[in-house]
């Protein structure tokens, strides 16, 4: 559905997107992640034909985004990051206008506008002036617009930006529903959302793709070892040193000092240290209140590949 080869975009001599290549198959739901300024919006704008690339070859549904732009635009439902809307129009009026300029046949107009309104939770809002809507409702109108011509491909740029947790949840559920009928490229900072809905994750950092795989595979590949989390009552430095001396320990990270020391212990991949830690605590006469596996989350993968510090805390390498 999407084929991007060696895409580059330069703004005033600054490379926002640098030799990016990826493919998205029909029916896939791909999460597009990366820190702010990584080049996600730029890539999406090039896919939708709003911006022209500096270099590279970009195709959507087999059509070139520059030379066959109209064909590409017909097939895309796009929700831009800022959710731009005309404040002087009413919701129904806007959706009908958008459906017409996206060439939805007249006979389907009424039913489609009704259907997308229902799917986006806009029933009864048809007469509202867009300029008076709250952020959450604006987001829904933007989504309804993206869906109104029943496009094959949805490109959603941070659809949950600025929503409260409740609205967030609703949009996430909606996207989950959409995943069955559309190919989706979804840019977001909400990693649990991605883990739940996306079959694949692309991570971009400073204009380059740094990871591309299913969330499970990424976690497996990035996880350098087996991690456990332990909370012990004892002198912090003694606890830290004692944990370090256990066999197979690769690193100990103290996440929190205080009477209760909260530490993360990492060992080689197949080795589960939980019983050893328990024995150690008993032997030293400390108290134990938590001892559990601490698997890699998508967030850890993300922080790791984008080169940001891996949570807070001191880290000691043996």
């Amino acid at each position, binding site marked *: 559905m999407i084929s991007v080869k060696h895409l580059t975009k330069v*703004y*005033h001599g600054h490379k926002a997107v640098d030799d990016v290549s990826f493919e998205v198959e029909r029916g896939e739901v791909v999460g597009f992640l990366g820190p702010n300024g990584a080049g996600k919006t730029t890539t999406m*704008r090039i896919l*939708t*034909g*709003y*911006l*022209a690339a500096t270099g590279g070859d970009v195709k959507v549904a087999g059509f070139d985004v520059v030379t066959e732009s*109209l064909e590409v*635009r*017909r097939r*895309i439902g*796009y929700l*831009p990051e*800022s959710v*731009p*809307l*005309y*404040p*002087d*129009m009413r919701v129904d009026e806007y959706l009908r*206008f*958008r459906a*017409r*300029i*996206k*060439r939805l046949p007249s006979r389907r107009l009424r039913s489609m506008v009704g259907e997308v309104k229902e799917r986006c939770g806009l029933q009864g809002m048809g007469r509202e002036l867009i300029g008076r809507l709250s952020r959450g409702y604006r987001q829904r109108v933007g989504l309804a*617009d993206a869906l109104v011509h029943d496009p094959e491909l949805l490109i959603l740029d941070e659809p949950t930006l600025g929503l409260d947790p409740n609205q967030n949840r609703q949009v996430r559920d909606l996207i989950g529903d959409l995943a069955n009928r559309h190919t989706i490229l979804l840019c977001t900072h909400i990693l649990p959302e991605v883990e739940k809905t996306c079959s694949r994750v692309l991570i971009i950092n400073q204009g380059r793709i740094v990871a591309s795989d299913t969330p499970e595979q990424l976690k497996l590949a990035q996880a350098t070892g087996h991690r456990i989390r332990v909370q012990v009552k004892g002198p912090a430095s003694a606890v830290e040193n004692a944990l370090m001396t256990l066999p197979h320990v690769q690193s100990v990270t103290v996440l929190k000092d205080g009477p209760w020391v909260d530490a993360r212990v990492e060992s080689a991949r197949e080795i589960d240290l939980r019983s050893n830690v328990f024995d150690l605590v008993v032997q030293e006469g400390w108290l134990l209140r938590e001892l559990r596996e601490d698997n890699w989350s998508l967030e850890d993968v993300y922080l790791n590949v984008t080169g940001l510090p891996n949570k807070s805390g001191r880290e000691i390498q043996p």
Partner: protein
Amino acid sequence: MRVFLTLLRREWLAYVYAPSMYWVVVIFLLLMGTSFGMMVHILAEGAATGSVVRMLIGESLFFWLAMLMVVPMITMRQFAEERKLGTVETLLTAPVGDVAIVLAKFSAAWVFFLMLWLPTAAYAWLLARISPESAPIDFSALMTSYIGIAAMGAFFIAIGLLASSLTSNQAVAAVITFAVLCGYFFWGFMPQFGRGVQLQEVGRYTSSLMHMLEFSRGVLDTRPLVFYLSVTLFLLFSTVKVVEAQKWRS
């Protein structure tokens, strides 16, 4: 065609919904009303020298003020507002050609401009009612004046549209348009003050002041009409190119 009509309707409604456009109507009617009032005054004093239509349109300072001030106010929002709201992104990523977008914006502005002139037809009717003379107003001169205004208006609006496509600030678009229109208007005095026969000749062909004086005399010359049509098309073409070029911009 359906897409064009949809866009045109949207652009037209944007004018109708915009409160600022009522001010445009008010300013326009004040200026043209003043022009009419002065004409009636001159007629009443019996000091009239030229034709009535010419006093109302071609020679009136207020007529020219209306032409130069109202067009920038009509066109300034067209592209600048879309850029400011960001809606240019949804507009340009819809499967619509840039030509249709530019033509729809132009047509809506032009129709709005023409609508402004409708009430001025009432002046002629009013004059016919209050004047003791049998035929105070030359209706054919009024018609040719309207044709001239429509053609010149298209040209002025195309200038405004191009200016609006160059910025995301409406005020900047309005100032650029006003400056260009004023410059063009004063260029119209070239036939009188220009040096050299050639300059005077070019001046005569392009002077909006001369054109309007002729139109308001009831003379329908096709040369100025062809001139306005061709420069309008050229400006619209440039606007399409500007909109396209913005995809490549930085």
